[in-house]
């Protein structure tokens, strides 16, 4: 009997996951459902980051900055211009995606760590610019959105937001999977693993790298937009450098190169800081940094890597029978 | 008691075994050659001595067992390894490269004297003292590497394929210096070479390696006259 996780197994796992996502609010309080809405938001953000860092190998510490752009887009459009808040979601995504694409061009000159530096600088710069252009952004005081309300009578707004977020997450996950399984994904991975060989095969470095940036930014923009809607408030401190770091950490822990692994990553991002705070009230970040170091040392391929290893071990065991 | 003795030395690069049990010895004041085709394990043998490859077996130098010691501590015992490709630090000046030879020695005045003597052997290097080492020709870099090794005042000199990439005149000049060092100064030398003719003319003893083992050894005279050696390595 072959006890390995083949294609059927993977579809089964996906179906199980989908079932959990659909049924979860029934088992949880409204508050916990609200927390899991954030898991969905982070999931979207790091799936996008995974395309950039996991598949095309470009280290980005700026995903939080792109989230900020998406969040502010939604806020400004809905508060200052009366645009229906849910219509702003795709607008935020597209606008952020275009900015990401534009950022991709100068970023072409930079590889590896230099790119990480540039995105780190971007993260810091966006925060400062949000403070500075206060006519637009409300400066340090920030801007409030209308409190979220469920358009469906009888359904709590937390539950509504949860399903909205996860529905979008599911659609975007499918989109990412489709984009990555074809030639695009292969080209990205070729660029990541053997850039010189890939370019000599005619794969346009420029086109794919900037596209990868655009995709990551688009996803972050949507995540940021949803974030603004869910929290109903943004200010420059909502998306600090720490968030970009947390997003990258979540992606690494989930397992770069694995889309489903991002579920673990998103869970980590939402709940780890809370648990770390419970462990040690004054130094949650220290704990969280130590966990990161430990994981980097012991499981560099993250949760997804661990599952792969377990899967291989199962395969070997079942073959011996 | 030989100055250097290898007994049953094995070495691998990952899964590939390069040495299958080498035994050789070098007496103090001797110049010994290691011959063999590409891949025979000549370079690996020198690396085993200088500690830059992981080995099993025994290596004794001057009474010390050095087989699994870190490279820098072996070097401090008085072994100078001029590696394949010369190992010149191209971004540093010629002078700085020479200074590096003595940088871990404590006796500053003696180091200065040694630098002076080394440069006497290589006047062309002395001329180019301020140049960036990377701008030197292959032959000059080989001289520089040897000068640097001399400044460390080694008990044992390991030379790895010095003739590689050098013009014939540079090769003969280099080995002229090698002979002078051995015959006039009594320097103990272990030299790996593919150019069998010139190395057998500059040494007293030799080992021929094949596929990671010692296939043959004897005095350089004996090896020069040996049928097999003549056919494979001397071309006649």
């Amino acid at each position, binding site marked *: 009997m072959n006890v390995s996780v083949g294609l059927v197994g993977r579809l089964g796992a996906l179906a199980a996951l989908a079932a959990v996502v659909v049924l979860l609010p029934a088992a949880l309080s409204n508050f916990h459902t609200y927390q899991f809405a954030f898991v969905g938001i982070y999931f979207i953000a790091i799936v996008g980051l995974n395309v950039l860092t996991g598949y095309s190998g470009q280290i980005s510490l700026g995903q939080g900055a792109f989230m900020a752009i998406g969040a502010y887009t939604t806020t400004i459009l809905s508060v200052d211009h009366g645009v229906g808040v849910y219509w702003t979601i795709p607008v935020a995504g597209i606008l952020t995606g275009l900015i990401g694409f534009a950022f991709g061009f100068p970023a072409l000159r930079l590889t590896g760590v230099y790119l990480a530096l540039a995105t780190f*600088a971007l993260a810091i710069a966006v925060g400062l610019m949000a403070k500075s252009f206060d006519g637009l952004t409300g400066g340090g005081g920030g801007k409030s959105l209308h409190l979220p309300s469920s358009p469906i009578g009888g359904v709590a707004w937390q539950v509504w937001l949860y399903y909205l977020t996860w529905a979008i997450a599911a659609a975007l996950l499918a989109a990412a999977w489709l984009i990555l399984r074809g030639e695009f994904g292969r080209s990205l991975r070729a660029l990541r693993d053997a850039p010189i060989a890939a370019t000599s095969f005619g794969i346009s470095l420029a086109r794919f790298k900037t596209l990868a940036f655009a995709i990551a930014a688009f996803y972050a923009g949507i995540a940021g937009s949803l974030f603004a809607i869910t929290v109903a408030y943004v200010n420059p401190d909502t998306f600090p450098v720490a968030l970009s770091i947390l997003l990258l950490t979540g992606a690494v822990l989930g397992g770069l190169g694995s889309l489903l692994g991002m579920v673990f990553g998103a869970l980590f991002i939402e709940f780890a800081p809370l648990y770390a705070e419970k462990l040690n009230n*004054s130094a949650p970040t*220290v704990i969280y*940094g130590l966990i990161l170091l430990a994981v980097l040392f012991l499981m560099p391929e993250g949760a997804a890597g661990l599952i792969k290893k377990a899967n291989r071990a199962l395969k070997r065991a079942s073959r011996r029978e | 008691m030989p100055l250097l003795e290898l007994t049953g030395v094995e070495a691998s690069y990952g899964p590939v075994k390069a040495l299958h049990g080498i035994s050789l010895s070098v007496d103090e004041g001797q110049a010994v050659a290691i011959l063999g085709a590409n891949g025979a394990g000549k370079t690996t043998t020198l690396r085993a001595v200088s500690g830059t490859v992981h080995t099993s077996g025994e290596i004794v130098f001057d009474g010390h067992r050095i087989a699994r010691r870190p*490279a820098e501590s072996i*070097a401090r015992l008085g072994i100078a390894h001029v*590696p394949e490709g010369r190992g010149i630090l191209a971004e540093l000046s010629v002078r700085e490269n020479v200074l*590096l030879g003595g940088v871990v020695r404590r006796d500053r005045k003696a180091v200065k004297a040694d630098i002076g003597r080394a440069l006497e052997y290589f006047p062309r290097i002395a001329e180019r003292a301020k140049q960036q080492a990377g701008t030197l020709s292959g032959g000059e870099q080989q001289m520089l590497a040897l000068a640097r090794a001399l400044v460390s005042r080694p008990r044992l000199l390991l030379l790895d394929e010095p003739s590689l990439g050098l013009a014939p005149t540079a090769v003969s000049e280099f080995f002229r210096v090698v002979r002078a060092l051995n015959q006039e100064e009594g320097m103990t030398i272990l030299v790996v070479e593919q150019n069998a003719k010139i190395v057998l003319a500059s040494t007293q003893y030799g080992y021929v390696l094949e596929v990671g083992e010692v296939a043959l050894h004897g005095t350089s005279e004996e090896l020069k006259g040996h049928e097999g050696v003549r056919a494979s390595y001397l071309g006649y």
Partner: protein
Amino acid sequence: MASFFQYVVVGLSNGGIYATLALALVLIHRATGIVNFAQGEMGMFATYLAWSLIYTAGITYWLSFSLTLALAFLGGMFVYLAIIRPFSHRSELTVVMVTIALLVILNGAAGWIWSPQQKFFESPFPLSVLSVRGVVMSAQDLGVIAVSAACALIVWLLFRFTRIGLQLRASALGPATSRLLGIRVTLMLGIGWGLAAMLSAVSGMMAAPVVVLTPSFMLIVLTYAFAAAVLGGIDSPFGAVAGAYILGVGISLLSGYVHQIGPELQLPVALGVLLLVLMVRPNGLFGHPIVRRV
């Protein structure tokens, strides 16, 4: 005209703070090929140690300064040997993440040990002001310029003219060859990290009187220092220092004469300029192109 020179002096002072940290970044990059995202936080942590020495233990400023440098040296060496070296064979992304983890740990630890509240950190320089031909300069700025210039000079002298400097350079340029020469390469690289930590500490202690002391106060300095190092060429110590001064003076002049550029926009403008420079000269103003054999 006087205001021009005043802007220049302020720019050189800020530039000096960036230059010292940028020099640390370049040192580490040349020695171990790593871009250390935690470099600023190492300086921050050292500055907090100095704060404790000065304000909790009551030790005088310059003695605390020196003790802090010694502690920073040991700390930097420890970080290299205990945390960075175990990851030396891993991918670039992993190493970046390690330095980021270190950033997070140091930031959190500082907030934990000393509380995240703003603290006052004194300047060793008098509050007086000099006036030379109508140009008004603060002793603080002049002092910072002097200290950072001294650091750059000392580092230069160390590397060029001492035996240990030669060993450090050799270890960075050719670790395998250096081992064959008897150089204790691992120790040398550890010393390199220790020196870089010392420089970061100086940068932090010079910046703290200007920018109030909080656990995140060095993040912006780090960003400027990165910009300076990349501007000057990440492997060129001279370039990093020059880049930092150019950046400092440039921003000071720009924000002095262009009034729309308030304090918060200085960094984004600097980064914009940096991106422009990189598009034209990807290796920085003074960097060497890295030729890779394919």
